[in-house]
């Protein structure tokens, strides 16, 4: 136990040196760090948002809307399909998860089932087929129902969330936030972390807009104030409340879809000085746009965003170049945001912010200062106690404690774990817990000395007897922290991380390292009595 082969000593020292090297980048300025050679460690401790300032948003995708969308689409395509197959029906009713068709002639049920089956998309399966239809079609009496299958619902949800993440990423990239984190959480949530963002208002506004844009014709014969929309139309409000005309009757048929946009930029109209958004279509969109405008010169053409009419200008001449302009009494910021939204594309479903935690940068800086001060004071207090209680052996423990803190920082840097404010509390607490091992050992050595053992024998017995207790005692805390890490969220996870690192590393520093120091000292001085 007391003999250290040379390679072991070398290994212990190497670990300490390596840890120091890995920790140093945290104390360099950014400039120094970038000037370092590339082989040198550049990883720093990742500061949590509560320390560096920033905004943490948890978004929820409205899955109900995703399914509703698909059901509505199903109603439309069922209508067309049944008409093509000459199946008469009295009504098509949308339900929670599918549609019900009331047939005029129950004898046509088989034909209707076949027709509706054609509407199914195949999901799963590989290039050799083997997938299954996403619709379950059944007939009962004069009614045929088509329901989305369980797998189809799940598939839809997965698609919707993946698509949403992509769109969210694009929109946030447009705002110029540095190093955002965007990650899926659970079945229908997206976690967004925006370092350095103090007022997430704009981001929340951008993310809260679905940005589904459509170009649709206005029904000129109907009166929007009538309160009831004629079949095949919607009454939609204007996006500005101050306008004379606050509602429009808009045809349901989408002439051109915003998905066909390839670009959108904010600009100002040279004639009026008004802020506008210029847009460009892809080839399909350009062709459709040209066709519609050619056929409807003199009629208003509505630009609808999320079921609100931005504007409904009258078509003066066919627009064939695939370019256009939206004007709607925008401010510069409005125009910019709309351009961002159109460029990034529409969300498959509305997003809701269900949790926000924002910390200003100065509060974060205050927390770092308070944290560093606390750790410094805690370190001094613990060391003072250890030296007062155990003299030289206490000083050994203090040195080990210093190495422990350095190695914990190194581990955090290396693994890119996030240090949060509760994480600093964890560092602090592990200072106290780490010296527990040394207290156990030193008390044991004292006892053995009192029993009359020699110098070497006491140290040897002290270490070997205390070891199993140390492992036991630390394991109990480590188990708790593993549970906290799995079940905790956000900043509190950081507490579990730093304590676990601190404890695991203390098994090395408080025992192996301290033993090496004690043994070297014993061999060098050959004392007659131990200083405990």
């Amino acid at each position, binding site marked *: 136990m007391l003999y250290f082969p040379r390679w072991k000593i070398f290994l212990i020292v190497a670990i300490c040196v390596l840890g120091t090297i890995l920790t140093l980048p945290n104390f360099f300025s950014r400039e120094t760090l970038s000037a370092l050679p590339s082989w040198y460690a550049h990883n720093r401790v990742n500061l949590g948002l*509560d320390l560096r300032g920033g905004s943490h948003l948890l978004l*929820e995708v409205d899955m109900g809307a995703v399914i509703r969308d698909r059901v509505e689409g199903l109603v439309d395509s069922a209508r067309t399909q049944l008409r093509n197959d000459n199946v008469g029906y009295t009504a098509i009713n949308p339900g929670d998860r599918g549609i019900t068709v009331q047939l005029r002639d129950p004898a046509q049920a088989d034909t209707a089932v076949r027709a509706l089956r054609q509407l199914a998309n195949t999901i799963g399966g590989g290039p050799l087929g083997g997938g299954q239809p996403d619709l379950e079609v059944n007939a009962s009496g004069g009614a045929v129902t088509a329901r989305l299958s369980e797998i189809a619902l799940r598939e839809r949800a997965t698609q919707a969330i993946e698509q949403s993440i992509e769109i969210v990423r694009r929109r946030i990239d447009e705002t110029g936030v540095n190093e955002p984190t965007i990650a899926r959480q659970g079945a229908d949530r997206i976690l967004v972390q925006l370092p350095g963002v103090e*007022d997430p*208002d704009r981001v929340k506004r951008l993310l809260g807009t679905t940005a589904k844009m459509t170009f649709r014709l206005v029904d000129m014969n109907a009166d929007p104030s009538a309160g009831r929309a004629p079949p095949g139309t919607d009454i939609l409000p204007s996006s500005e409340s101050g306008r004379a005309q606050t509602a429009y009757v808009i045809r349901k048929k989408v002439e051109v879809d915003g998905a066909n946009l390839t670009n959108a930029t904010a600009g100002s109209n040279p004639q009026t000085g008004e802020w506008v958004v210029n847009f460009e279509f892809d080839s399909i969109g350009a062709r459709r746009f040209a066709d519609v405008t050619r056929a409807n010169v003199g009629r208003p053409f509505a630009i609808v965003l999320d079921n609100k009419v931005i504007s409904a200008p009258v078509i003066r001449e066919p627009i064939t170049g695939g370019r256009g302009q939206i004007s709607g009494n925008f401010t510069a910021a409005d125009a910019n945001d709309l351009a961002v939204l159109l460029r990034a594309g529409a969300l498959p479903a509305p997003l*809701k*912010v*269900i*949790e*926000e*935690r*924002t*910390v*200003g940068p*100065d*509060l974060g800086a205050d*927390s770092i200062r*308070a944290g560093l*001060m*606390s750790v410094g*004071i*805690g370190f001094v*207090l*613990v060391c003072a*106690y250890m030296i*007062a*209680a155990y*003299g030289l052996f206490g000083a050994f423990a203090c040195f080990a404690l210093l190495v422990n803190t350095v190695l914990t920082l190194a581990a955090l840097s290396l693994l890119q774990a996030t240090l949060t*404010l*509760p994480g600093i*509390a964890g560092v*602090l*607490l592990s200072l*106290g*817990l780490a010296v*527990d091992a040394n*207290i*156990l050992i030193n*008390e044991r050595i004292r*006892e053995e000395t*009192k*029993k009359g053992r020699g110098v070497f024998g006491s140290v040897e017995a002290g270490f070997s007897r205390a070891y199993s*207790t140390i492992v*036991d*005692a*630390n*394991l*109990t*805390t480590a*188990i*708790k*922290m593993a*549970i*906290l890490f799995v*079940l*905790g*969220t956000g900043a*509190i996870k950081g507490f579990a991380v730093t*304590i676990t690192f601190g404890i695991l590393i203390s098994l090395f520093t408080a025992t192996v390292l301290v033993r090496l120091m004690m043994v070297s000292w014993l061999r060098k001085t050959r004392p007659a009595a131990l*200083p*405990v």
Partner: protein
Amino acid sequence: MFRLRLVPDNTNIQFMRGRHAGLIVSAFLSIASVVLFFYPGLNYGIDFRGGIVIEARTPQAADFASLRHTLGQLNLGQVALQEFGSPQDVLIRLERQPGDDAAQQVAADKVRATLAQELPGTTVRRVEAVGASVSGELFFNGMLALGLALLAMLVYIWFRFEWQFGFGAIVTLLLDVTKVVGFYAITGMQFNLTAIAAILTIMGYSTNDKVVVYDRMRENLRIYKKMPLRELIDRSINETLNRTLGTSMSTLLSILPLAFFGGEALQDFGIVLIFGIFLATSSSIFIAAPILLFLGENRLRRNAPTENAAPAANPTP
């Protein structure tokens, strides 16, 4: 050579004399804590109840009366204001807003806008808005964490020690945890995720302490085969007393700065941990050990003759 000793080396306190008093006081405090848990109940923080917390710094010392009046006009339910740290720092707490999760956002934005308008120069340093679905899950996860932690300890000690030790440790742990909850109820401190972390830490610390004392008892059971259990337990406690108090001291010293400089989030955490350290230390001595004495009087001696022989002389290992 001066050495700081928390207790003199040859201390021999007969702790087991106080075993009845210890258990009765502890049981009473725990029952009181459980009662307090139900009535008046805990002051759940926004993690578990949902709602909004805004930390603002006003340019001059904050005028609470006018601030309360201004925010009261927003019709956002009860608005609690609290000075924090300096007279310029105000903590604004709003109840969870009726409606869905998005309603929290609307209310938080309203308060932000009002602060900017009515008190120009005010900086909003922190905003937290948590909706009902999120707070419900956080609460569930928090309780699950506590339950799992107890279970994990049970399994761990079960494997590691004889059942008498395991039973003693778990009962003590339950008594400890209830008292910490009672501490939250009495002080009215916010019970949130940090509180769960604090309870888990105290559980870890308390078990750790019990393991050390139990380890020594087990060792002594092997050495002093004929010593009465009561004497043996007292001896074990006295032998480990310097370690128990020493570790309590070092942990206490490391936590102390937190209670003074920890800021809104960590100050309470530090205070609860300090309470927990006292709790865990005393329960190792006055609860865990007596339980073992009651359970183990005739069972924990295996290969020893049953007649009560005189205490063994100082053994030579």
